[in-house]
């Protein structure tokens, strides 16, 4: 979380479509509690932030990512 970025990393890498199946990539855009990081922290552009949001939600549904991490209720 310490690394606040200025440029969109996904644009730098010419990512056309964020894949919801790529949990390792998506994991970099959630907190250690599993929340989606805000754009001010990810530095992602509008297009990619929207794609990330949808992709993370799909990945959660498929149990590739947790909805909440470390919750002991």
């Amino acid at each position: 979380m310490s690394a606040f970025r200025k440029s969109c990393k996904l644009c730098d890498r010419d990512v056309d479509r964020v894949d919801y199946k790529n949990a390792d990539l998506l994991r970099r855009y959630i907190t250690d509690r599993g929340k989606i990081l805000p754009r001010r922290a990810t530095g992602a552009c509008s297009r990619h932030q929207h794609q990330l949001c949808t992709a993370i939600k799909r990945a959660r549904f498929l149990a590739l990512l947790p909805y909440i991490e470390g919750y002991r209720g």
Partner: protein
Amino acid sequence: MREYETVYIFQSTLEPEEIDGKLETFHGLLADAEITAVEHWGRRQLAYELAGQSAGYYVVAQFQADPARIKPFENALKMDEAVLRHLVVISEGESAVPPSLRGDDEDEDDDREDRDEDEED
């Protein structure tokens, strides 16, 4: 005809032959659909429990099908208890291959490099 992508999560206790058999039945419901890819990701740990199970067998399939065929297809998936969960989405050209086998993570360590630079500041 439209391009779709489906992710199945089967019970991990099933034999591979049983899974192949089920996939054949499901894809048969899509009638004249053209199946373009079927990737077996295999047994995977789930991020949270589904139906009391902590692991599942993942299969990703891509196909071109008539939109009218999707409803009965999904109904069959819902009825089958061996399918822990499924997702049907319109394909956006994503790869069906498991990310761990794609080998396109050239700059996987980017994040760590960033942090190192920050500390120098």
